[in-house]
């Protein structure tokens, strides 16, 4: 009788151990699966969806976006110039500001030094981002080839265009990618990023117009018409005025200097 009692006890104990082991194995497998999904997310998506989630425009945008934003900020701080090395400028508080309008004389309005600010801005961006754009085109080719496509590209050139609320980079490059019966052809590829620098450039152009005509500008008027605009104006002792035109929402900035209708100190000059 006693032995009979032990058999169920022994059986139950064995079952408990096996059950625990099973649960343990299941939990380990689940955790491993989660980790694998997390690590190989993209590849799994490709496998599941048949590899159709690929947009060259989106790829290029992701590749060039950070560099483009960084250069927009740099060129904005340099008054639309890629480099201030050969540009008339003034130093103030450790920073340099390009003169967009200047006269060395007193009592007269300034002479415009940069009449086509937007075009100069685009040219500067192209100079600074061109290398990265070419690199991204190379990366795009590798991505297509990795996916098994045959990829051909003609002569390419990147152009940057500033637009209202955006900066667009256009890769003028005839591209053909083919894989079996699938064939994709593009004359050009475009990527756009959000930016308010267009408005800043044209507001600055308007300020330069006022400086060259009247010798000064009324910045409060601009800020009242454009609620997102902030203009800081600093007048230096030598008659130079430094402008910082910025967007309160996007925090982008355009800076430049002007020397116009300067009054010398005292009774001299």
């Amino acid at each position, binding site marked *: 009788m006693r032995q009979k009692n032990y058999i169920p006890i022994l059986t139950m104990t064995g079952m408990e151990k096996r059950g625990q082991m099973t649960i343990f194995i299941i939990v380990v497998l689940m955790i491993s699966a989660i980790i694998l999904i997390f690590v190989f997310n993209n590849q799994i998506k490709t496998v599941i969806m048949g590899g159709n989630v690929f947009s060259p425009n989106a790829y290029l945008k992701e590749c060039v976006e950070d560099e483009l934003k960084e250069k927009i900020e740099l060129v904005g701080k340099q008054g639309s110039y890629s480099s201030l090395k050969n540009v008339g400028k003034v130093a103030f508080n450790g920073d340099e500001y390009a*003169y967009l309008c200047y006269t060395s004389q007193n009592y007269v309005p300034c002479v415009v030094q940069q009449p086509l600010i937007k075009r100069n801005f685009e040219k500067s961006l192209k100079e600074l981002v061109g290398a990265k754009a070419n690199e991204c085109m190379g990366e795009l080719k590798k991505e297509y080839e990795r996916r098994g496509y045959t990829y051909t590209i003609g002569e390419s050139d990147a152009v940057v265009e500033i637009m209202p609320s955006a900066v667009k980079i256009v890769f003028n490059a005839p591209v053909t990618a083919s894989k079996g019966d699938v064939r994709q052809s593009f004359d050009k590829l475009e990527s756009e990023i959000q930016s308010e620098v267009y408005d800043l450039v044209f507001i600055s152009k308007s300020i330069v117009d006022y400086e060259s005509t009247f010798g000064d500008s*009324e910045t409060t008027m601009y800020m009242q018409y454009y609620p997102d605009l902030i203009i*800081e104006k600093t*007048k*230096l*002792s030598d008659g130079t005025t430094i402008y910082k035109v910025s967007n309160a929402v996007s925090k982008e900035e355009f800076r430049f200097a002007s020397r116009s209708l300067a009054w010398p100190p005292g009774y001299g000059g």
Partner: protein
Amino acid sequence: MEKRKIYFIENSGNYVTNSPEFSNRQFLKTNSITNKIVHSIGIILILAMVLSFSFAEAQSTTICCEQTNSNLYCQDVPASECKTNMRQVPTACSSTSYCKDGVCYDSNEGTCTDNTPQLVCNNNGGVWSETMPKQCNLGCCVLGDQAAFVPLVRCKRLSSMLGLQTNYRSDITNEVSCVLSVQNQEKGACVYELDFEKTCRFTTRAACLGGESSEGMKGEFYAGKLCSAAELGTNCGPSRQTTCLPGKEEVYFVDTCGNPANIYDSSKIKDAEYWTNIKTKTESCNANSANAVSPSCGNCNYLLGSFCRTAERGKKPTYGDSICADLNCEKTQNGKSYKHGESWCVYNDKGNQEGEMAVGSRFFKHICINGVETLEQCADFRNEVCLQDKIVSGGVEFSQAACRVNRWQDCAAQDNQLDCENTDKRDCRWASLSGVFGLAFGNAEEGGVCVPKVKPGLEFWNDNSKTTCAQAKSTCVVEYEEGFFTKKKCVKNCECIEEGTWREEHEGICSAIADCGESINFIGKEGISGIKLNKIGK
């Protein structure tokens, strides 16, 4: 027999931190030969000064320089500042062909920039002309529900950027009319079919019927209706999202297709009628209030100091991410609160504004913008002053300030009080004098001299400022009479040696013309030297 003794009293003007003395001296005139020698020396000195001035002028003659060593174009500068490989012409730049000012036209953008030298324009790819070209004539460019007063080519450029057809009206000749022409356009739901599905775009009648806002498809226009109206049967419906719209101050609901609906009102989120018909601003929540930082109402009012912005942490609305941000400034530097857009003058140095300006002081204009107090300096050396006034509208005051040129330059040329205090032409005041006594400054006559109301600053660290202050020098000849039986007594200009009037008046002139005489700087520190009174002679 009477003897005469004549005394010279000299009031020398000086500036505060450098030249030492203001001295009163009494000289006894001895004989006429000495006077002749002194006069001769004076004439020689004057001649020498004139010659040296001519020489200095020759040195500073300017030329038109194509590009200076500082990389600036078309400047009238001395030859030594010109880049050697650039054009230099011994004339004014306005007389040259390459540096003559004109209009620079950008054919890509359709913009025109005046006062641009020809070579600068051409170097940057523009088209230069001496006079304003026809391409720069302005007209009204209609861009959907907005407008811009720009040239035709610019209008085409803007229209292409926004994906619109060019709508240019040359008959509208001013900006106000241009803006008004688009403000009353009828708006509503533009329903069309796309990929076999009925969809909708919220736009103007013209854009809908012209296919501009509906992927090129001409739609059916329902005036006064929102795209989320159930009766239209589109795939657009109410949502809990909000947004800020370009050119609009309020927070708007957005439907599921991304179209703007009515002004955000959290109490109306499930109101079918509110998602069907367009409501005006006055029909929306709290129409007469700014609704600043209101979690439930997005009816912002820019004139009252609120505007649609993305909500900051801690100030979230009930629905969506946009809220009416408060643009006013509370407790500014002077302790007062100001509305968005207001500006005011601040003069916060140890001097005062009644002619006793501290050395180094200047005027400041403060502005309240986007909830932040910013400051703008007026020109240094007090070449600009700050003026402030209030606009009263509907019982509400609005402060406005501006920096304006300090017109002190021709004060010295005025010889009567009427011209001196003509505020239409100059910023001067008449300083009364009991006697002129050879005052070098201005065009004084008996009774007073014209001085600046706000005295200009000086580069007092330079030697030429001594010349400026020396203009306040005046000489008072005091005559004494002494007889054998009478004591020496003053018979003429005796006020010069008495305490009071003469000295105070001339000290006032000295400090009124510029940073001369005894003074303090803008943080209240006194100058290194003050005024000394020296008596020389018997």
